[in-house]
């Protein structure tokens, strides 16, 4: 019942008095059993018998009605009913209220097991809109849509609330995982003065709430659950591949099929490679179990593998999973190498996966004969451009000429390693013990520089942002060819670490449903265009330091683009566009709906208990939201009992049947 809550529900046990009263009345309608010596005279005296049923529904007498009414009223009074929004509003609307609706937009809400054949999300959205419709003048509303990202909608007056309702009706399921705890923390911070707050959580229950966070909420949370809480579901929760060990060029595929239901499931798993059926296998899954399927020998050159498990469960999006075998990252790391192509550094760069190198000599660099960009990284070995020609890209400088990159204040001869920055990302897997360097300049570091490794007199390896956060640089001060570093195992690892730190993150091949993608686009990209499986295009501008002075002094993560709309399963296309709209590069990644948590459609049995902690310590707030009506019920019960007593007294004054003497015969029962 909307607007009515029971503060002591255990009092409803007293409702058992109502059927007890009815049973007592049934006893009155139950005929007395009387043993008689013979029925022959009675048969002739009463040839037509009445109802033969031993127990009959008692007649709806005034006494029965009054007694049941009194019992029900007393039981309800014991349960301490309190009216709030709906009924309370009918009584009085003196205080404006702030309705906060937490709308679950997680992937499990796509399950089609809500009444009337709609999805859980549609049912929840309609319910939320219905609650918004109950607001009036002076009320405010906040809708928090929890999905891949948390979206907040607010309305502070009635027209805005109505507009919010219309807007909400057009919002599709965002998918992903609902960050309920984050939403509750946000709600905890929403404290509008002079309004009554009401928090409504509309969800399918397949979420978990941190009780400690719920405790921080000052008012009770009203839970509305949609969908069937025990729905089963069959899902592909994992799909990966790896190069075949025995067959070069081929791939081995690994699938995981999970049964989240309480019943045994039998189905067929189908593997389609580039549009043709490649493999089929029957699966038999006990309740709440998972099974692995291994498919060997995916042919070389296969681009796309689609796995499907056939099931008629409510959530069919996770019955299919896609894997791109040829598009792990469309964005290769383009490196411009300036220096001697026969060096160890050039070879070390060349073996890094995904790195494509273009090289020019230092002379060409000085002459400005640069190949067409853009480049993700420029590597200078024993060379540097003029300061005014520094590229707008990250830079790796090895043995830069004196005072070209950083001012040098001297030279270290046979410097010994004295300082190492422990746990730095550049040194992950790198052991510099035993490093021998013939000679190194002593660079004078500015405030943006961080020494990674250094000798007694100066740094040997450091990172700097001397040219701004958009152009981070890693500097190795000494000549590699005059040290033993290239001969050590640590060398390619160190170079790879430097590249990974300096170049933008690649696009992953697969992304979990609802997970966000954050990466730094190529330096020349001004816009990121993402085309989701439904064909929708999302353009995201790439900001640069030139666009916003606020980026000055910040890290290069400011250029990072975060894409969160991964709530739909399927293949996403990513394009990086230049300022003139030219496509610089393209790639694809896949979002699969199968998820170890979101595919489990079972409602969390502890959700009620966790949410019950909300507002538990704020009796005053609770009272302000509820108006107890037990005194009214007591009055109703008292009136009913008085009327019943009056009727009973009146009935006793009626004359009895004359000549009736007590029947105490042995046969009487």
């Amino acid at each position, binding site marked *: 019942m909307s607007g009515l809550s029971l503060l002591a529900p255990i009092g409803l046990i007293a409702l058992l008095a109502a059927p007890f009263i009815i049973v007592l009345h049934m006893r009155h309608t139950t005929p007395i*059993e*009387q*043993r008689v*010596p*013979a029925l022959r005279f009675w*048969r002739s*005296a009463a040839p037509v018998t009445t109802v*033969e049923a031993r127990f009959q529904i008692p007649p709806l007498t005034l006494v029965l009605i009054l007694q049941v009414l009194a019992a029900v009223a007393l039981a309800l009074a014991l349960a301490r009913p309190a009216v709030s929004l709906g009924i309370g509003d009918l009584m009085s609307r003196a205080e404006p209220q702030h309705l906060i609706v937490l709308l679950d937009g997680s992937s499990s809400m796509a399950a089609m097991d809500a009444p009337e054949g709609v999805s859980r999300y549609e049912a929840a959205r309609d319910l939320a809109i219905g609650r918004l419709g109950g607001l009036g003048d002076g009320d405010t509303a906040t809708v928090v849509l929890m999905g891949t990202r948390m979206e907040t909608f607010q309305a502070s007056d009635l027209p805005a609330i109505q507009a919010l309702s219309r807007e909400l009706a057009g919002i599709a399921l965002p998918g992903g995982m609902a960050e309920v705890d984050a939403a509750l923390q946000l709600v905890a911070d929403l404290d509008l003065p002079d309004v009554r707050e009401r928090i409504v959580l509309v969800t399918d229950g397949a979420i978990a709430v941190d009780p400690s966070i719920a405790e921080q909420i000052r008012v009770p949370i009203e839970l509305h659950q949609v969908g069937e809480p025990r729905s089963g579901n069959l899902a592909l929760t994992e799909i990966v591949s790896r190069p075949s060990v025995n067959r070069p060029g081929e791939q081995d595929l690994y699938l995981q099929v999970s049964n989240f239901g309480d019943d045994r499931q039998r189905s067929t798993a189908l593997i389609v490679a580039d549009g043709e059926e490649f493999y089929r296998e029957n699966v038999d899954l006990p309740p709440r179990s998972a099974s692995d399927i291994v498919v060997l020998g995916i042919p070389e050159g296969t681009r796309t593998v689609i796995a499907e498990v056939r099931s008629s469960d409510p959530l069919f999006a996770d019955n299919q999973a896609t894997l791109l075998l040829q598009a792990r990252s469309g964005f290769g790391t383009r490196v411009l190498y300036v220096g001697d192509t026969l060096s160890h550094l050039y070879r070390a760069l060349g073996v890094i996966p995904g790195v494509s190198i273009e090289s020019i000599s230092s002379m060409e660099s000085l002459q400005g004969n640069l190949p067409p960009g853009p480049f993700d990284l420029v590597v200078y070995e024993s060379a540097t451009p003029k300061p005014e020609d520094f590229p707008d890209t990250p830079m790796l400088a090895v043995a830069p000429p004196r005072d070209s990159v950083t001012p040098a204040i001297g030279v270290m001869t046979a410097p010994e390693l004295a300082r190492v920055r422990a746990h730095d990302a550049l040194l992950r897997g790198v052991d510099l013990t035993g490093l021998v360097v013939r000679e190194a300049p002593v660079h004078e570091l500015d405030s943006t520089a961080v020494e990674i490794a250094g000798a007694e007199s100066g740094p040997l390896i450091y990172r700097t942002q001397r040219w701004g956060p958009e152009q981070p640089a890693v500097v190795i001060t000494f000549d590699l060819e005059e040290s033993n570093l290239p001969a050590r195992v640590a060398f390619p690892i160190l170079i790879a670490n430097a590249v990974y730190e300096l170049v933008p993150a690649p696009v992953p091949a697969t992304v979990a449903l609802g997970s966000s993608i954050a990466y730094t686009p190529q330096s020349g990209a001004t816009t990121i265009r993402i085309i989701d499986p439904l064909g929708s295009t999302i353009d995201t501008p790439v900001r640069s330091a030139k666009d916003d002075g606020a980026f000055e002094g910040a890290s290069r993560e400011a250029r990072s683009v975060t894409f969160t709309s991964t709530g739909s399963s399927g293949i996403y296309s990513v394009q990086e566009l230049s300022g003139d709209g030219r496509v610089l590069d393209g790639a694809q990644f896949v979002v699969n709906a199968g998820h170890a948590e979101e595919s489990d459609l079972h409602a969390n049995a502890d959700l009620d208990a966790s949410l019950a902690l909300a507002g538990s310590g704020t009796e005053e707030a609770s009272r302000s939201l509820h108006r107890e009506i037990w005194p009214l019920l007591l009055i109703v019960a008292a009136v009913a009992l008085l009327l019943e007593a009056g009727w009973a007294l009146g009935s006793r004054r009626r004359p009895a049947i004359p000549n009736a003497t007590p029947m105490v*015969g*042995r046969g009487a029962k």
Partner: protein
Amino acid sequence: MMDVERALNRLRALRQQRLSRSRSEPPRAESELLFDEEMLARLRRLVLLSRRSVAEGIAGEHRSRRRGSSPEFADFKSYSPGDDFRRIDWNIYSRLDELFVRLSEVSTELSVHLLVDASPSMVWQGSVDGPDKFVYARRLAGSLAYVSLWHFDRVTIAPFGAAVGSPLGPMQGRAQIHPALRYLTMMPSLEGTDVAGAAARYVSERRKAGLLIVISDLLSEDGATMRGALRHARARGWQTTIVHIVDPAELDPAALFQASETGRSSIELIDAEDGARLRIDSTPDVLERYRAAVGQWKADIEQACSEEDSDYVEMRTDLPFESLVLHRLYEAGVVA
């Protein structure tokens, strides 16, 4: 002296017999309730009256209308061929010149057959103040048996339900009084009820006729069936007496309608005989129709008894047994 010793030995034997019986038998409280000494003393003064002498035997104490050859003079009758010459009164012949035969009274014994209804309908009482019909019937049967045995009549007691149970007797003599009372005390209730059938079969199985006293509530019978049974007994020379045991609540069951005062609208009646159930509405009309049906039934039974020259005695269980019952039997001519 020898007679005194024999009497003492007999008393010792009787005492020993009673002691052994008291150890093996359950308490006889019911027997004590059935008959007390005061009532038994009153019964001793009564003699069963038989309007028809029906059987002869050894020395009974009843005067018989049948004239016999005993020394005790009774009357004269004209001689007819076949009469005993030895009974001709020659003195009268000498005076009147006509042959008369001297008649004398013959003391006869009376065969009394007590058929006691032991059907389930008898085990019913309408009030805790009085006995149930079965107790009442056995008490009545015991009284009649006591009187009969006291006067050296031959007594047979048999229970009946749908059929006749194992009888006790025939027995004769005052020494059989206590066994008879004990038998009645221990008499079990039997299944079913068929008064007419049981009486007819009982009469048919006996070679000699006698006085048949049927003690029953007669609920299984109507006027026609009773008439048939009585005619059957009469045709075989039996004198019958119907003692109708009636509980007052059977005649006027108004107390059943007290249920309406508790708010219940109907009463479910259970037949004591077969457990059949009947739901009736507690309306005064039903009560009136019941009374009328019972009254008609009783009238039919009484009419049948009258037509078949059978005594009919209605005994209500609320009558004080010691006084009114015996008085009632006396009025009915069953005892004298």
